[in-house]
């Protein structure tokens, strides 16, 4: 009888701690975007990107070999997440996430756009046709973030950073330098993003018969919205982010050698430098962009 009671008591203790671990699991700690914190805020600026991949180790080898990124891996519960770092600065995150058997999914980079008040921004976005993909989560050191799909279905995230937004410097090699939205109707999409992020919108003269507009805040170009290229039936609206490199052609060749693919051959873009679009080994597309220091203005007005 006494043995039975002792066994029951032990079981209760075990179950107590199991329950405690389930209910009170520690929050997933993400480092701040800026350390030391910045007092600046730049709504509409692309401030972060997360890759979702089924093979984190392969992605680390690829991006480390191509861009010189190093990684700080965070293990928490079922999440394996690596912070990519260059010159001591975090530039993005790589999330391991398995694809359920039988499902076909495309690995991708998720674009994070800065907001000052995520509840207001999310509300405005939803009121103008966006859908919430992942509702607001609070990661105390990073900030509050939510993932949405815009009216055409392009996925993006908004982030109210706890450590402010980085000052507006020219991106260094290995850092994100540009973001492009490719959409069926850039006109309507630009209006949507203007409503949510208060962008100034500049419609560019087009040489290719398609629409290209610049989304601007703080008198800096933040992103472009563009008509999808040909074969629209085989394409869907999406954000595409570009990383600054010293030589786009060499980097594209290196990406292929590391197991990636070249999706758009290196060519001269609007600023006079070369760009290319590649995919990593799991298929996630991103751009490579050359940019010499004298290609951009030095001061905001």
């Amino acid at each position, binding site marked *: 009888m006494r043995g039975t009671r002792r066994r*029951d008591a032990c*079981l*209760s203790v075990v*179950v*107590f*701690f199991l*329950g*405690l671990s*389930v*209910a*009170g699991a*520690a929050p*997933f700690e993400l480092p701040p975007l800026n350390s030391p914190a910045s007092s600046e805020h730049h709504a509409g600026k692309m401030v972060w990107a997360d890759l*979702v991949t089924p093979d984190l180790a392969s992605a680390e080898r690829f991006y480390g070999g191509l861009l010189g990124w190093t990684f700080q891996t965070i293990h*928490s519960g079922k*999440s394996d997440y690596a912070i990519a770092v260059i010159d001591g600065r975090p530039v993005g995150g790589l*999330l391991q*996430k398995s694809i359920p058997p039988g499902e076909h*999914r495309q690995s*991708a980079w*998720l674009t994070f756009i800065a907001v000052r008040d995520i509840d207001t921004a999310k509300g405005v976005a939803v009121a103008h046709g966006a859908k919430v993909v992942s*509702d*607001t*989560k*609070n990661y105390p050191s990073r900030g*509050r*973030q939510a993932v949405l799909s815009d009216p055409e279905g392009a996925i993006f995230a908004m982030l109210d950073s706890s450590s402010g937004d980085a000052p507006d410097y020219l*991106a260094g090699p290995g850092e994100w330098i540009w973001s*492009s939205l*490719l959409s069926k109707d850039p*006109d309507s999409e630009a209006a949507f993003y203007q409503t949510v992020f208060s962008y100034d919108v*500049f*419609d560019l*003269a087009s*040489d*290719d018969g*398609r629409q290209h507009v*610049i989304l*601007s805040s703080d008198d*800096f*170009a933040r992103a472009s919205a563009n008509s999808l290229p*040909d074969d629209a039936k085989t*394409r*869907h609206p999406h954000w595409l982010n570009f990383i600054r490199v010293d030589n786009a052609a060499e980097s594209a060749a290196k990406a292929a050698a590391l197991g990636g693919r070249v*999706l*758009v*051959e290196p060519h001269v*873009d*609007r*600023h006079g430098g070369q760009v290319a*679009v590649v*995919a990593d080994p799991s298929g996630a597309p991103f751009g490579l962009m050359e*940019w010499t*220091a*004298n*290609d*951009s*203005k*030095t001061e*905001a007005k």
Partner: protein
Amino acid sequence: MNAVLRSLAAGGLAALALGMLYACAVTGVGVEGSVGVGYDAGYYEPSGYEYGGWGGGYRVGPGRGGDRRDEHPGGSHTFRSAPASRPTPSIPGRPRGH
């Protein structure tokens, strides 16, 4: 047997209640939105679509500032076009640390 089950249930429920109380107290759930316990921001795109593949004449990058505007700025757009007097901006050019 019933005693064992009762012990298990009591222990589990007590732990769940305490854990949830702790989580709410620490994180302020309901005030700031749910706290990320795991990380679920990663979003897979649907498969079967084509990326890239466009030719050299298709340009999505920024200009160097002052790029030529559409000849009819402000006309027949869904968005509010910036005034024609404003030059098209470029990306930040100030080197880090300056």
